[in-house]
């Protein structure tokens, strides 16, 4: 299969689908379904063809604009490939969920497919320019999807989303411009290598003075907006609530992972040493993200806003794991226990990225179904007693909710467990305070279950139909995946662990 450039093919496929969708009018959704299904198959093929030692494989490298250090350089390790699979699953779910786009469906699905291409491109890029191109390519369709198909207050929400993300991108660009000017390279593996030997800092200091710390802060801020991390999260609730639910699935399921992925692929390899020095304030922000997200979710009445803040909370665990493992190096000795904790935390972070994507997308899908059945209702007080008229929906949504809560046996548990297993020895204070977040989330989820499924049935829900056959068939694989990963997390970790070891070996704190 060496002759076939799988990664290029994967990126081009949704772009071709988008072009096709534009000209097919009413059949755009079918085109999108076929394209996303093919993308998922291709992503799974890529997952099976990873190098066993956890290094970067399937590499494609060509000259592009050498004078600017720009190369066409693609490759994935298990981290990248897992994100490809996740992006493909979430997009497929989103297209599946969007079966009532009456207004310009061809444009809607073309934009969704462009967004998918942007995700694939940014998860496979190994050169800054290439990565940045696709990072921005995601932003444009996401903006228009909110702006044109969103709820009543879509205008301000889209603008806020755009401005925050754009500001984050600008900071990233400036930081990378500085790196390029000092090193003459935009290549991630090359820059990671320079950073691991300490040369990167020397070169940048020699060229630009002692700005390494500022560059690290800039890069962190750029990614923090996308994740989002407290206090850069304020764009999120409005954007998630105003976007049509299938688009929210994409935003939370896949796009938020671009930020975490950026931290792992770019920030830690290049600026690990600086991040380790800022570890304490960063941990405080991560814990704040966890706790604040949970408390804010508890205060909401709108299902979409509840799940939006819960996303903030869940991605906070990823941040907790990432910053906890950035322990400043002391001496030269190898501390076996430290390495085990770091590996556990990183495995947990990567699992959590995948699982949160699946679970959060599923939750917003359920919200979309409930809105459809009640003519747009989504306040928790507007529902009640749904388990009587819709037992299947209640059951399946209950599984997704319990998965989000972190119940053992469901997918979110192993990731969160590993993060806490790793973070506890590394920073027991941060881990302990974050447990508070777990407790509050549990209360929020149980409240949702009580208010929506139990109690008296309101009048407008009297004829609430249960899931029909097609919806059950569409949801079954997703719920099945939650159970599968919950019981057999090793399906993923067996491939991810070598990459984790490989990554940790190259990071210099």
């Amino acid at each position, binding site marked *: 299969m060496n002759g076939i450039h799988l990664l290029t093919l994967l990126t081009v496929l949704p772009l071709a689908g988008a072009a096709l969708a534009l000209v097919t009018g009413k059949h755009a959704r079918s085109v999108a379904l076929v394209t996303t299904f093919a993308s998922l198959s291709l992503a799974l093929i890529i997952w099976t063809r990873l190098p066993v030692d956890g290094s970067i494989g399937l590499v494609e490298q060509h000259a592009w604009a050498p004078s600017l250090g720009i190369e066409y350089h693609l490759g994935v390790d298990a981290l990248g490939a897992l994100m490809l699979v996740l992006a493909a699953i979430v997009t497929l779910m989103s297209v599946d969920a969007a079966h009532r786009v009456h207004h310009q469906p061809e444009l809607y699905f073309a934009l969704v497919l462009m967004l998918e291409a942007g995700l694939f491109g940014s998860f496979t890029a190994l050169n800054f320019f290439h990565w940045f191109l696709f990072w921005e*390519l995601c932003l444009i369709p996401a903006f228009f999807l909110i702006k044109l198909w969103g709820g009543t207050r879509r205008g301000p929400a889209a603008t806020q989303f755009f401005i925050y993300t754009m500001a984050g991108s600008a900071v990233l660009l400036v930081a990378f411009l500085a790196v390029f000017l000092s090193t003459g390279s935009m290549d991630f593996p090359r820059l990671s290598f320079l950073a691991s030997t300490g040369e990167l800092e020397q070169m940048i200091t020699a060229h630009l003075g002692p700005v390494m710390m500022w560059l690290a802060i800039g890069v962190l801020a750029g990614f923090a907006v996308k994740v989002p991390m407290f206090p850069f999260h304020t764009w999120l609730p409005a954007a998630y609530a105003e976007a049509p639910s299938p688009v929210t699935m994409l935003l939370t399921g896949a796009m938020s992972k671009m930020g975490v992925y950026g931290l792992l692929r770019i920030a830690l390899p290049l600026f690990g040493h600086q991040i380790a020095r800022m570890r304490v304030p960063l941990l405080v922000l991560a814990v704040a993200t966890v706790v604040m997200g949970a408390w804010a979710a508890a205060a909401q009445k709108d299902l979409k806003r509840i799940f939006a803040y819960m996303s903030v909370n869940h991605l906070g665990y990823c941040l907790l794991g990432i910053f906890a493992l950035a322990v400043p190096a002391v001496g030269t000795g190898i501390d076996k226990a430290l390495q085990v904790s770091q590996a556990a935390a990183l495995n947990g972070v990567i699992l959590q990225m995948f699982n949160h994507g699946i679970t959060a997308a599923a939750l917003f899908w359920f919200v979309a179904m409930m809105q459809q059945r009640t003519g747009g209702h989504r306040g928790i007080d507007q529902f009640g007693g749904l388990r009587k008229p819709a037992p299947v929906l209640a059951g399946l949504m209950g599984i997704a909710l319990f998965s989000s809560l972190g119940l053992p046996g469901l997918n979110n548990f192993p990731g969160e467990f590993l993060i806490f297993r790793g973070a506890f020895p590394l920073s027991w204070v941060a881990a302990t305070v974050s447990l508070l977040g777990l407790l509050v989330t549990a209360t929020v989820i149980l409240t949702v279950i009580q208010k929506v499924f139990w109690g008296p049935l309101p009048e407008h829900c009297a004829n609430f139909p249960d899931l029909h056959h097609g919806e059950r068939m569409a949801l079954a694989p997703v719920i099945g995946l939650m159970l599968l990963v919950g019981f057999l997390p090793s399906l993923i970790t067996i491939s991810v662990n070598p990459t984790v070891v490989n990554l940790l070996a190259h990071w210099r704190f």
Partner: protein
Amino acid sequence: MLSILRPNSVSLLAYAIYLSFAGALALAFVPKGKTALARWLALAFAVGGLALAVQGFIAGMGQGLVTLVDVPWVPSMGIHFLLAADGISRVLVLLTGLAAVAGVLFSWNIDLRTNEFFALYLALIGAVYGVFLSFDLFLLFVFYEIAIVPKYFLIAIWGSTRREYAAMKLVIYSFAGSAMVLIGLLAAYTTAGSHSTGLVELAHAGLPASFQMWCFPLVFTGFAILAGMWPFHTWAPTGHVAAPTAASMLLAGVVMKLGAYGCLRVAIALFPRGLDPWGFSFIGIGSWRDVFAVLAIIGIVYGALVALAQTDFKFVIGYSSVSHMGFVLLGLVTLNQIGVTGAVLQMFSHGIIAGLLFAIVGRIVYDRTHTRKLAELETMHLYKRLPFAAWAFVIAGMASIGMPGFSGFVAELQVLVGAWMVNPWWVAAAAVGIVVGVAYIWRALQKAFFGDLLPSAHVLEEEQGHHFAAITWPEVTGVVLLAGVSLFVGLYPKILLDAIEPAVKTLLAGGAQ
């Protein structure tokens, strides 16, 4: 004359000039009223020019300076009819060809004295080709002056808002700049004591440093006026706004590049010592280079800020040109490989993008809405009623703000990298212009196309009882052509960089090519 009769493949480029002037002549003889004939004839000549430009670009790949024609013209003064092309010329000729074709496409609906319009239009194109291909100083100046005349008539006859004022202002600024250039050139010719006005010979004439020190700023400023350098930029927005769409596209897209090209090919190449430090410095400014860099940066920031405050859609684009041309000038005075390369690429890129923006604002939108006031456009629901225009503007806007994947990103990035190598503070200041650039495009986009005001589009159309005229094929073709080129160059900048880089290297090493 033999070289004309036995053309090698690159030297066909010279025929782009002849063809355009021949076209102008032919159109002057088209009888009045035969508008369709005039249009198709103009398109044919423009496409012919583009074909020659493309052919010359491809044939010239990997070659340095190629002489196209060299005939003695005024032997007593050493003046030759000398046409030649290096990588920079070939890229800019390509830009001219593209802009010419797009301009004809977006002028398809001109009914007033169509044949004269296109005759003047092609004369302007011919003169622009001439400037980019002249390697004799006198010849270059002649073409440069020829270009001014058609500009005046195009604006004064077919223009809109305050057209006589704008046309006159443009001409006065142009002639003032030319006068400065002419003084400098005559002085250089006499000082060098050479018997040639060839650019290559003059560059090697070894002009004294003290002479270069005063001649450089004179000639650079003279050319930079036409490139819209602050504070001599004021002709540009009024001229762009008053001009008919095709002329705006050419003015912003190509004519401003003539000025920048002159700055590089004449001022910097002939008087490189004029950029040396003065030996003292005042508030951080210690050479002409610093002076012009500061003016360029003021232009970048000022143009963007003023664009942000405009109420007229076309003025937004007019001032954005001042801002983007600031990047060209900044890149030129970095005097390093990457900065100057970036400046030339930015000339190309801005030529394409500004043309596209003016076409959307002046032709596609204005000819249907008959207003350019953002406040009035806001109530028209143009996104619903002219979706093609809205999406075209989204793409052009992304290109304009320097979104990666479009030509502007690579060009401005190179300019910034080059500027950083000289003085990081320049980059910090210019970056403000980029941020404001996002803001004004954003604002114009929101107001002009995505206004959410009541009543809804449907109600509005019923009240007014009419729909906008459908988008025509020349408009679609023009938008696809320009947007496609910007995207292609943005994704594959190597195709132009391979031509520009060696030429810039030779030029900076001394020697006019």
